[in-house]
């Protein structure tokens, strides 16, 4: 199908984009890479009267270190994250997850801000951001900014707390210390498709192999990606024995509430979430022990 008629606006800086948003608000949509928005327009699931194409606002395209964070501008493309040595070094979990985002063709156009603002519960970046307890920087029309954490930002399927006159400006991923281990695992029907379930994990171990600072999130099995807080608490101070892993799988399955669709039943997804959590933990512990940091 073809998209409905719209008026096209191409601001050259952030302030101009925000002014357009102030003027057209609910009738407008921000267009950056368009890899999520244009399919919905092609299928006429969405028909905004105005498209504000922010793709030429070059100051929103950056990857840099900022205190304890890896700060990524909203217009940074997935492929730039994939090719960045800085990301590999500061946040290997993000490097690993980004390869699961769509196909090469999609990663060449799709942007970080777009993925976050779209709020797809099975998308990879929201899951990574949730696991790491990252931050989302939002620009307001008056020039002020707000910083939100994932559980404030992601509300439910494809719905975020972003107001019509606000825009995602930056996404902040906490830097992962060199001695930590992390892992991102996913099961999708075809490489590059949306995951049936996915798990992001990061943790430390002490000299005896006891777990510290465990952070895990699961995506694709709830209306938003969720941090598995119960599992995290349970794991602190423990070693990954078979019994502990069985318990982790059970706790994970209790924490998720998946739905059935033509790709898989709720029961299958629930079990998958448990299995993937166990798998991610094993890989992350291996890497924390000094195994290979990147796949």
């Amino acid at each position, binding site marked *: *199908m*073809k*998209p*409905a*008629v*719209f*008026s*096209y606006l*191409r601001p050259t800086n952030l302030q101009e984009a925000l002014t357009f948003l102030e003027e057209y608000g609910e009738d407008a949509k921000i*267009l950056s890479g*368009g*890899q999520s928005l*244009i*399919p919905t327009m*092609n*299928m006429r699931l969405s028909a905004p009267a105005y*498209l504000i*194409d922010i*793709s030429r606002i070059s100051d929103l395209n950056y990857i840099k270190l900022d205190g304890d964070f890896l700060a990524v501008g909203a217009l940074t493309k997935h*492929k730039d994250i994939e090719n960045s040595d800085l990301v590999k070094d500061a946040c290997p979990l993000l490097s690993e997850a980004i390869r699961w985002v*769509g*196909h*090469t*063709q*999609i990663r*060449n*156009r799709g942007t970080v801000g777009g993925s976050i603002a779209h709020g797809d519960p099975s998308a990879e970046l929201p899951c990574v951001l949730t696991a790491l307890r990252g931050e989302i920087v939002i620009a307001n029309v008056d020039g002020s900014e707000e910083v939100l954490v994932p559980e404030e930002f992601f509300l439910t399927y494809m719905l975020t707390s972003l107001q019509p006159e606000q825009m995602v400006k930056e996404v902040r991923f906490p830097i992962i210390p060199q001695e930590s281990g992390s892992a991102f695992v996913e099961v999708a029907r*075809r*490489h*590059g498709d949306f995951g049936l379930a996915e798990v992001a994990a990061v943790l430390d171990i002490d000299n005896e192999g006891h777990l510290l600072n465990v952070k895990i999130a699961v995506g694709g099995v709830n209306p938003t990606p969720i941090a598995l807080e119960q599992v995290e608490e349970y794991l602190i101070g423990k070693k990954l024995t078979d019994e502990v892993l069985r318990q982790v799988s059970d706790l994970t399955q209790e924490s998720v509430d998946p739905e059935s669709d033509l790709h898989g039943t709720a029961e299958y997804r629930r079990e998958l979430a448990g299995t993937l959590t166990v798998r991610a933990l094993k890989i992350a512990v291996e890497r924390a022990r000094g195994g290979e940091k990147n796949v």
Partner: protein
Amino acid sequence: MSNKVQVGISINGKKVQKQVESRLLLTDFIRDECNLTGTHLGCEHGVCGACTILLDNEPVRGCLMFAVQADGCEIQTVESLNHVDGTLNVLQQSFSDNHALQCGFCTPGFLMTLTHFLKDNQNPTENEIREAISGNLCRCTGYANIIKAVQQASQILQKENSNCSVVSAQ
């Protein structure tokens, strides 16, 4: 406000200036405004990959872009691949030799994806080829012959490149 926009795009080395509707998809611009019908439209929501083209030398989905977004960019379509005398290039010939197509609808997308892939990776493993074409669907033959074609093309390209470097070393 008018819904018409002015776009200037270089397609296969030729500059095209047009006034078009802002909602015109890039693929429709290429097919209907430029009469380059080699680029195919399949699903129109970014799954099948038939519309893959090179935008500033990188493969993208033509159906997930508006023509106006490509304003000022360079595009290569499947029509850019064959030689000036009309003969097939190495990749196209390998597709032909290995029966890597049946109905041919998906072929332009495969060729454009693989043109970029073989530039970066001259000696790909079968797994790398499979991952490279994971964004392109074929519903006739499956992928076995396409993979054979890529392997043949990469061998020929490697040989050609090593000959070139011998020549330049002399």
